[in-house]
């Protein structure tokens, strides 16, 4: 799911928590998080520039994924660290885990594994969305950690997602849909009966279930971000529904 993440601030930030308190991190943790967020901002910037250069030089999106895939894989996989960061930054491990996992899934289990769909337009769509989102997000965290957050970055983080989030979801869903015929034909990642573990797994139906799971999950995350936006940008106090 194209994550313009979850609760207020997310990873790597001195948080603006619900009560407006600022949390203090140790000096070493802060130094590492600043380094991490600067590095990730730079990485996604490089990726974005590479994509633009490719398109200007070749005039087509065909082969774009192949040319940027190493950089994409490196920086997106590196983001697994953010689950570990949750221990320090007090973001929900579950939410971060789900976000990062869905990205890893798209990169490695769809785009990398099913080479035939790498030239689809939908791939470019979600790549562009991810790039803009991540550059905004990581620079937001960086400036937050440095206690010097320019308003336009805050504005960007809490406004871009309104368009980017649905666009990213569209890109991802269209890509998975395009991949389905190839998965069915090759039977990849699937386990058939009989086998001594008495279990079977059909990647094709698994992908269909994944696509359907966007239906309940996407609105929840989207409206959560909208609530965050109202709270951060307009100082409204929103009462969260307790279960």
């Amino acid at each position, binding site marked *: 799911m194209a994550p313009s993440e979850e609760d207020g601030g997310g990873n790597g930030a001195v948080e603006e928590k619900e009560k407006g308190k600022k949390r203090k991190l140790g000096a070493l943790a802060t130094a590492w998080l600043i380094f991490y967020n600067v590095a990730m901002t730079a990485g996604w910037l490089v990726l974005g520039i590479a994509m633009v250069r490719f398109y200007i030089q070749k005039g087509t999106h065909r082969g774009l994924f192949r040319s940027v895939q190493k950089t994409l894989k490196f920086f997106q996989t590196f983001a697994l660290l953010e689950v570990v960061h949750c221990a320090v930054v007090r973001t929900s491990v579950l939410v971060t885990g789900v976000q990062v996992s869905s990205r890893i899934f798209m990169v490695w289990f769809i785009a990398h594994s099913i080479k035939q769909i790498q030239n689809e337009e939908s791939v470019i769509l979600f790549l562009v969305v991810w790039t803009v989102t991540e550059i905004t997000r990581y620079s937001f965290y960086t400036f937050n950690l440095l206690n010097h957050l320019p308003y336009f970055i805050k504005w960007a983080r809490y406004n871009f997602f309104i368009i980017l989030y649905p666009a990213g979801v569209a890109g991802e869903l269209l890509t998975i849909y395009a991949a389905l015929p190839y998965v069915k034909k090759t039977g990849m990642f699937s386990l058939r*009966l*009989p*086998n*001594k*573990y*008495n*279990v*079977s797994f059909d990647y094709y139906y698994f992908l269909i279930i994944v696509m359907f799971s966007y239906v309940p999950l996407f609105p929840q995350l989207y409206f959560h971000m909208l609530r965050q936006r109202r709270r951060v940008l307009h100082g409204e106090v929103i009462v969260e529904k307790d279960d």
Partner: protein
Amino acid sequence: MGGRAGFFEVEILDWETKKQLCFLDKVEPNATIREIRLMFHKLYPRWYPARQSIKLDPKGKSLRDEEILQHLPVGTTATLYFKDLGPQIGWTTVFLIEYTGPLFIYFLFYFRMTFVYGLDERFTSSPHPVVNLACICHSFHYIKRLIETVFVHRFSRGTMPLRKIVKNCFYYWGFAAWLAYYINHPLYTPPSYGKKQINFAVIMFLLCEAGNFSIHVALSDLRRNGSKTRKIPYPTKNPFTWLFFFVSCPNYTYEVGTWISFTIMTQCVPVGLFTLLCFIQMTIWAKDKHCTYLREFKDYPSHRTPIIPFLL
């Protein structure tokens, strides 16, 4: 102001809006919360007592039925807060529904009903004896649970929210269908170590079921006189209860053992996955129970662990 001639006055407010929902005058000082719930129910018929959370503080814990009005930290005009807990369902009913489902769902697959494995395989039976054995064990397990629900268990709380049962049923019934599908599949492969593996699993299964039953009986005996208070469980003459020496919740220990034995018997990954999830869930419950015991009893045996002796 105060009540007349020793009586209390009780006003009940909505916990969120603070609106006054009712005003009871001439309440006996030694009235219990249970009686107040009944009075409230008369005024609001749709909020039966099990749905009422009555508390002293809008965000506080619900008061128990047995609490007595004059022993509470209130003046002679008491202000209580009401929260609607939503539709409730009795624990006995919950368990009956949760356990009958898997029992019958398994049969759908065992007898290979038409729609399950395709028309060629309907109503056929498996060439492997272990498949019949698995059906017997699975059914035995759930029938035992149903019998315990009706005759053995004594519940301290009467009800649970209705919403939860839908979620629970999806989980238990869904998993039962998933593992029954593979065990009774025409292409099922029997365990790799054959009879040795199956016999070992059966013995372990029977021991764990007997153990689990013994613990349930022992726990039920602690509440024989109908009291709702907790007591420390101790080992009895029954050797299966000697696990109480080491563990706070041996019933969960035996239950995990049952499912491990079923996994070994069927050598089926979905069963193993279900076992793992059961283990995680029961460890959480056992740790909770263990902490409650430690909190309530100063003389609780300190060497006991929640679910696995010496380890967890």
